[in-house]
């Protein structure tokens, strides 16, 4: 066995480019591209965590944007109270409070909704995950204190020791390192005993039950892990945009996350990251040419679904290694 497989090399090169290029852009006066890379890295974290249940678990969650949004609000709401008063026990700008809060809130939300959603199967599962996301969407819209439909401007970013999030390079660094950690975490989970059960349940549910696995519990656990990781991504996104709105939780956002996973290649470590890169770069290029960019973009999405099975990873690794 060689030190790195072909896939390993590709991953290393892509991740190295993602680490090096944005700061180079920034230092050569193209701050915008650094922003793009930061946003891309954050969305990639969300896609990586969605991949845990969608790719490895075979559970098509159509409501993952809600976790991202909730995570962002968990940063925004304490900051809002710190700036404008009210709810003193919540008011803080400390990242040590905000980020764990984001993770805890989304994990709890995933636990409650997952417990209901995982009782259903197939299209019912797709639609009920979306329904819960819509419920949170309308809940946030109705809370006037936090801006409702207008969203909430976070005038102050999370405060962390050593890292200054107001510095775009450092913020990118945090997002990038978080992405690496998220990838390694998902890789570790999927290769563990737990991950074997999760993938086994995707492959053959009845067999796994007969073997004695309570797959409901395993799936729920994976759903909570995935939701919490998305919540963390949301906390970063809130810090990046300094603005959060219910629109982040719209069902089309959930669809975009799903697309990143499929576009890059589900159930692979690098796939969701490649998908996020391709998605955002293509979006950026097309939208700079025409306001009608949704047309070629939609055609491209359809083309990927129709013709490029296995996503970009499938194309990169060649047919031979393709298990499907």
């Amino acid at each position, binding site marked *: 066995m060689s030190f790195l497989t072909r896939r390993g090399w590709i991953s290393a090169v892509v991740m190295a480019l993602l680490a090096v290029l944005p700061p180079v852009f920034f230092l*050569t006066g193209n701050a915008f591209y650094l922003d793009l890379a930061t946003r891309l890295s954050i969305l990639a974290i969300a896609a990586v965590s969605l991949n845990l249940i969608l790719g490895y678990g075979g559970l098509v969650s159509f409501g993952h944007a809600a976790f991202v949004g909730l995570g962002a609000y968990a940063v925004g709401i304490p900051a809002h109270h710190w700036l404008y008063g009210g709810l003193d026990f919540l008011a803080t700008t400390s990242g040590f409070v905000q980020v764990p809060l984001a993770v805890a809130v989304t994990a709890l939300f995933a636990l409650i909704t997952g417990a209901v959603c995982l009782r259903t199967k197939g299209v019912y599962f797709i639609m009920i995950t979306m329904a819960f996301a819509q419920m949170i969407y309308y809940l946030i819209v109705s809370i006037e204190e936090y801006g409702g439909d207008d969203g909430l401007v976070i005038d102050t970013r999370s405060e962390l020791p050593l890292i200054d999030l107001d510095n775009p390079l450092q913020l990118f660094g945090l997002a990038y390192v978080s992405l690496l950690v998220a990838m390694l975490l998902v890789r570790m989970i999927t290769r563990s005993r737990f991950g074997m059960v999760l993938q086994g349940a995707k492959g053959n549910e009845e067999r796994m039950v007969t073997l004695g696995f309570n797959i409901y519990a395993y799936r729920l656990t994976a759903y909570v892990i995935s939701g919490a990781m998305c919540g963390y991504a949301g906390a970063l996104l809130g810090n990046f945009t300094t603005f959060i709105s219910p629109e982040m939780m719209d069902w089309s956002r959930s669809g975009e996350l799903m697309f990143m996973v499929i576009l890059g290649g589900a159930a692979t470590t690098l796939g969701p990251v490649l998908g996020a890169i391709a998605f955002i770069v293509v979006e950026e290029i097309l939208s700079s040419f025409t306001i009608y960019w949704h047309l070629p973009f939609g055609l491209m999405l359809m083309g990927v679904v129709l013709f490029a099975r296995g996503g970009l990873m499938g194309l990169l690794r060649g047919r031979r290694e393709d298990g499907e």
Partner: protein
Amino acid sequence: MKKLLTLTLAAGLMSTAAWAESVKIGFVTTLTTGAAIIGTDMQNAANLAVEHLGGKAGNLDLEVIFADDGFAPETGKQATDKLVKQDDVDFVTGYIWSHVLLASRKSALDAGKFLISANAGPSQIAGKLCDENFFSTSWQNDQTPMAMGEVLNRQGVKSLYVMAPNYAAGKDMVAGVERTFKGEIVGRDLTKWGADAQLDFSAELAKAKASGADGIFVFYPGAAGGAFIKQYDQAGLKDTLPLYSVFTVDGLSLPKLQAANFQAVLGSRTTQEWDPSLDNAANKRFVADFKAKHGTYPSFYAAQSYDAIMLIASAVAKVGNTEDKDALRAALKAAEFESVRGDFKFGTNNMPVQNFYLREVVADADGTWTTKVVETVFEDHIDSYAAECKM
């Protein structure tokens, strides 16, 4: 991938080598989704302004870069970031929606750019969040409905039913009319807004009718406005429940309503700070040229966008460069340009101090539906949040 990034890198480097002899204006508006009708109108007006200026602001070339906000605050903020960081514009203007403006505000101001709203006017930005580099060529949300509340008092309306979308501007509008209206509010409906906004108002209209109010006040911008008017018409409420609206009947919905022959809208009344019939030279030229070019009356969105470009050009012409921010700020504040509203001046919070008119929907000499001024409701009105602005 690598090649692509190299290409974009090269493109990026080129774009930063800005022409010293030009002034760049970023214009953020809605160019996709159903709300693109507003954005297109603003775009047309901004282009007309550039044309009237001969493509120059003083000695400098005038370049306007349009960007789409997709009717979503996050997208709007991204568009603003790109204009500021990549295109390195000197001014950012446009902004239809309050939430897009609030989301984008920090991106533009932190980068030291001038931000000029051509429509959105949320209360925060007039009050607590006011900024020396922020200006508006529109109004603060509360003002127009306040004018309507005053009109209702003058017309002896004693009880009112209120309807608006359930979002911040909608709530601002309701608060505005309730601030000046002295009668009784007998019912209030805030309907679903956002990506899947409610456009069928059957239940609400039935409630409004059953309430026995003297009139109904509504705020439904964009496509929802046309939908509301039609259902109001179909429900046959014209005689029993007179309609008083703000930002609902405008230059954008009237051509559609006329094409479908919804007569109920004729004679309905609305308040606004501008009207195509305002009698000044700048307005006459603007309306005539806009009609000649696009076949319709310009909307108030168009008028405000035209003014925004004219305001910027006047300041740049006066200073002669885009580097001297202090001079530019002073020149903007002085607002020495020919507004389509006639005289134009800013208050302490950089919001316009202006008249508000009552307008009525009429057919013009050619039979085209438009509005005309009935009376002046407020003169030199200052918005309610100016005192909160510490500047």
